[in-house]
């Protein structure tokens, strides 16, 4: 009987008796009011820093769609002459401090469309252009039952306007060197994308077709630099990282070298555009020059949001203090 009783008896531990030692915090005014004040002040500090940083970033934008308002590129918008060259001129009054980045931007362009976003074959892009592409690539899967390399809608619609920048010094155009390296993610360039390693690049693509909209096959994307050719072309990599929202920018070039290592000095500039990419049916395109700081590009949202939330916190702590003083103390005295 004794044994049986012992067996029936539950373990008398802190856990089974729900008496584990515990910290019992409470959201009382004593904690929350100072907390809000602290958060508020910290946020205002961060917000001010962010806002000032953001204000110091220089951005230069130019829409070159060519529709609507007449610009230099309006001729090209009809897509009748190919290649069509147009210019965008601008002048700088102060130094555009380095590092300067050249972006192109598209609006109303749905790279995040579901069918578009899956229309690629990551295995193919990992260095196997001749494999039969994934079904998701349809309708850009085969041409005459030869696989398209690279297959799919994303690759097919790759942005193909090209830009070159000149500084006008005493009426002569001096080319600003544009650096096409380091515009794609390091991991994309080194790991996620690969060119076939067997033989020459052209042989490796033997038996494949170029995408419908491309003027030249993948192995001719940059004939000058074998490390920037084929699936490893950095413009291609940038394009293949699909944008999150319908208005987006993509990095085109960096201005890093030569006379422009410190940035673009004041003066007149001309941006020469080879206009190939048709967007007038649905949206617009633009070109952007911007520099970045530790917090990235110009974004006032973050700074303002921090300031607003910070001030709200302080206001709230005052409100709470009033409420607390009025009700709580009366209650406690009673």
């Amino acid at each position, binding site marked *: 009987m004794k044994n049986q009783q012992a067996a029936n008896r539950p373990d008398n531990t802190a856990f089974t008796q729900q008496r584990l030692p515990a910290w019992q915090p409470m959201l009382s005014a*004593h904690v929350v009011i100072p907390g809000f004040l602290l958060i508020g002040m910290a946020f205002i500090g961060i917000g001010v820093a962010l806002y000032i940083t953001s204000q110091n970033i220089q951005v230069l934008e130019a829409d070159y769609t060519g529709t609507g308002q007449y610009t230099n590129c309006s001729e090209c918008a009809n897509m009748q002459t190919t290649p069509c060259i147009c210019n965008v001129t601008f002048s700088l009054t102060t130094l555009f401090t380095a590092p300067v*980045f050249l972006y192109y931007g598209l609006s109303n362009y749905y790279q995040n469309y579901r*069918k578009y976003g899956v229309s690629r074959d990551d295995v193919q892009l990992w260095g196997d252009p001749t494999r039969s592409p994934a079904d998701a690539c349809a309708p850009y899967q085969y041409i005459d039952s030869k696989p398209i390399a690279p297959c799919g809608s994303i690759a097919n619609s790759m942005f193909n306007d090209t830009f070159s920048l000149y500084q006008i010094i005493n009426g002569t155009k001096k080319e600003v060197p544009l650096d096409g390296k380091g515009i794609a993610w390091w991991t994309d360039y080194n790991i996620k994308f690969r060119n076939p390693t067997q033989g020459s690049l052209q042989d490796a693509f033997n038996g494949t077709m170029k995408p419908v909209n491309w003027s030249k096959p993948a192995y001719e994307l940059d004939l000058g630099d074998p490390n920037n050719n084929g699936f490893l072309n950095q413009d291609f990599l940038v394009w293949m990282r699909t944008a999150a929202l*319908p208005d987006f*920018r993509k990095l085109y070039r960096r201005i890093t070298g030569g006379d422009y290592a410190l940035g673009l000095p004041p003066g007149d500039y001309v941006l020469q555009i080879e206009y190939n990419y048709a967007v007038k049916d649905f949206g617009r395109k633009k070109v952007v020059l911007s520099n970045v700081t530790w*917090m*990235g590009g110009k974004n006032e949202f973050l700074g303002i949001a921090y300031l607003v939330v910070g001030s709200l916190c302080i206001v709230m702590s005052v409100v709470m203090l009033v409420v607390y003083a009025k009700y709580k103390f009366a209650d406690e005295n009673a």
Partner: protein
Amino acid sequence: MDFSALRNLISRYCTGEENWVDSRTVYIGHREPPPGTEAYIPQRFPDNRIVSSKYTFWNFVPKNLFEQFRRVANFYFLIIFLVQLIIDTPTSPVTSGLPLFFVITVTAIKQGYEDWLRHKADNAVNQCPVHIIQHGKVVRKQSRKLRVGDVVLVKEDETFPSDLILLSTSRDDGTCFVTTASLDGESSHKTYYAVQDTKSFNTEKEVDMLRATIECEQPQPDLYKFVGRINIYQDRDEPIARPLGSENLLLRGATLKNTEFVYAVAIYTGMESKMALNYQSKSQKRSAVEKSMNAFLVVYLCILISKALINTTLKYVWQSNPNRDEPWYNGKTDHERQRHVMIRAFTDFLAFMVLFNYIIPVSMYVTVEMQKFLGSYFITWDDEMFDEELGEGALVNTSDLNEELGQVEYVFTDKTGTLTENNMEFIECCVDGHVYVPHAICNGQILSGSSGIDMIDSSPGPDGKEREELFFRALCLCHTVQVKEEETVDGIKRGIHQGKATSFYISSSPDEVALVEGMKRLGFTYLRLKDNHMEILNREDEVERFELLEVLNFDSVRRRMSVIVRSSSGHLYLFCKGADSSIFPRVISGKVDRVRARVEHNAVEGLRTLCVAYKALSQEEYHNMCQLLDSAKLALQDRDRKLAEAYDLIERDLVLLGATAVEDRLQEKAADTIESLHKAGMKVWVLTGDKMETAAATCYASKLFRRSTQILELTTKRTEEQSLHDVLFELGRTVLRQHDSLTHDTFSGLSSEFQDYGLIIDGATLSAVMKPAQDDSSGNYREIFLEICRNCSAVLCCRMAPLQKAQIVKLIKASKEHPITLAVGDGANDVSMILEAHVGIGIMGKEGRQAARNSDYAIPKFKHLKKMLLVHGHYYYIRIAELVQYFFYKNVCFIFPQFLYQFFCGFSQQPLYDTAYLTLYNISFTSLPILLYSLIEQHISMDILKRDPSLYRDIAKNCLLRWRIFIYWTFLGLFDSMVFFFGAYFLFDNTTFTSNGQIFGNWTFGTLVFTVLVFTVTLKLALDTHYWTWINHFVVWGSLLFYVVFSLLWGGVIWPFLNYQRMYYVFVQMLSSGPAWLGIGLLVIISLLPDVLKKVLCRALWPTSTERIQTKRKCLTVEQSTIFMLSQTSSSLSF
């Protein structure tokens, strides 16, 4: 349950037509009756296999799957999964298939394991050896091979393998002793009787010679009812027919005691035995929380469908521009172009459904079930609810109702054994108005002889002396008490004189033991029943022997029992003992008035009274009685009714001897418990079969009624004077007048400021009130009665039949507020009420285990109810309420950004999050913290909950799951998800946020939103947690860490089994950017701020009493730091 019913049906079809008749014929030893007497119909009965398992090895998978998919939630996810398989949907089938598979597998494993345990138990039972007599020899067989008609040999301490008819025993008188502890919990030895004509068989050979058939009814679950007949064929004569009753039937599961061996014949085997028939599962009870959960689910289903509809419509509106439908960069295949627009629209609708389906959380059901299952262990583990005396703690029979314990509004309690100890003590007896009180009750010293009797009234004359002794003898004879150990007469005598051996009597009724013990103290000791003779040791230390002729057993309808005995001098007596109401009408002489006065006096004192009467019988009268009884006993049909009639004829024209009074002490802390329940806002009703005065006295003692309580009576006595109609209306007026003057100050827990009412109603009046309407007016009785009851703080219902108890519970359940009811009781008569109430609690009492077995929870003592409700119930309720609300909240937060994203991706069903995140969000990233919270959260400490019962009112009426609160949570979820999505949107707006100028894509966008989401919902729970043990810290921070580690790993490797690598390095790249960190911090804090603000302001402006207590405790414990903080606050303000 359905299955066993089906099995029965099938087996009946298989066994042929003869089983359709209401009785069965069993051929003992499978021997045909002598030719010509009766047609031999070979019969087929089920074998003796016990099947409690639900599945077999082969049907487990299909059957278990079928049962699981019968649940709506599982079926819903199966449909989603199939849609994903069939059509081209945004998310892979894995996202819903894996959680579903997980849920199904976990449930299947659990059920499979339980079934395996049942199989093991079944096998152990089915394979244990039994001894069967075949051809005069004992053969060992496995239990499952036992067949109906086999003659079985059972030895001492063995368990009966099936329901058996006792043929003979090793004892000469053909009796055997049995305990039925495993059946009904009664540990007393019960006596069973062998068939008269076979009781002399002592060897296998003899038994084997027997030619007989047994006719008996088809199996039925009532343990205490059996009718049958045995026909014994001897020497080609007419068969001898003998009646068989439940006293001949040995039940499967019972154990043979104090008897060397018995021979018996199997009549009900396997699943037809009474024990198996009794193991039917009860009807499922559902808790209020579950009901609101389902309502919320319907709301979310509507939200889901409307979301999908809105998006589908917008998609087609948006796509009406062909440049949007098919811009040049996003060509369609020919197949897609050709598809009919309606089909496209429908698949789009389905695709949106799939995309948003996570809003109905698949894991909620699993989590809720795990919470209930694991959480219920805290009840069984509770050391405070462990009873030393019983050696048992609380039992949980269903974990489905844990949270209902925190919602109880009405408590219906039994009196005897629940409020009171059911530990009877003999107080006094009264013979013809002379009162006798035995001395020395407490210290165990027994004074023998007449000196032990304290005469309160004047001593009776010589005539009185005779009556007095007759009274004592009557009490010594008229009972069914057994003697535990048979001792020699000398031994007993010695024991009495030494004052030991005070409790060697056993009986199913504690009253009887108390009476027999009381008689012992008054000088008449019942020794034993031997050879049908009852032996009594009288005051002169002489043994008197009475031959026991008949026992007319006690039943709750008659409320009395009788014995017929023949004294050694040959006189025949009938002694009858029973409730006053059932004895007085049958008495023709005796000092009725004086006894009645004493009985009423005792009843007011709270004592249980019994009256004793007798009748001297002539030989002829006795003969008639025997015939009457025998014919009733032999009847196969309606035997009970016929017996009752016979008893009624026999127990007549009695002479009143006197009355006894037995005290049933209140259980420990019963009054305290009732007071706490009152303070907690519960209405306590006592439902008892006792008489009004006794019950009322108990109610006063247990503080159910206070001295200030105004008692309203609705009893037969009053309705005899006035019509029921008038009484009801008058009471109604009294109560309502006060109710109107009552300001609606329900918050003050001090109801004592107002007059409070207590109602007493008896069974007869109740049934008059409940009687269905015959004319228009009586239909209102029920309403008026309910109205009166609602305004009474306590109600006592006395003289209740078991079924009436259930009726009352049902009445209250069905009243217009639909209150949650709880019934607590300990006896078989409480089972109906326990089954009827929302929550049924059984007390593991002295009257057997039936109540505990049928209850949802069983506790050792009434006082444990307090902790059960006020602490456990309260905790379970707040835990599960938070669990349910939080689950919906976190899934709104999860899915609403996806909905918003559709507006920015051309309604193309683009998922915002990666497949892994979609799949694991509910399974692993956010599942453990809430499960743990719902297991160990304590918003207030246990001791405060117990000390301050009024806190229970804070959660009454399912208040944490009201629509208002549900909407608050949903809006909080919507707000948070807007913050996540638009925060990320503005962060990404046309800019880069790395210092190398590179741009992030859509998967980074989704990952950012998801990271903010996981952190916010986890921290939201952390803010709600009031009780941080090390486990909480481990789980909360651990699951956040797990998310980070998983994301690093998931994005850190090119997974060969995936055909896309979209998440590759996305997470690391995101973390490498400063603004992403700043953005995550900002968004998390913005999301949490409103909730914190709401909490603080509500706490300051409209604190609930729970919050007041929390604050007070805080102030007491951290006074120092408070002052410090306040000074800090003021200093920072001045700055």
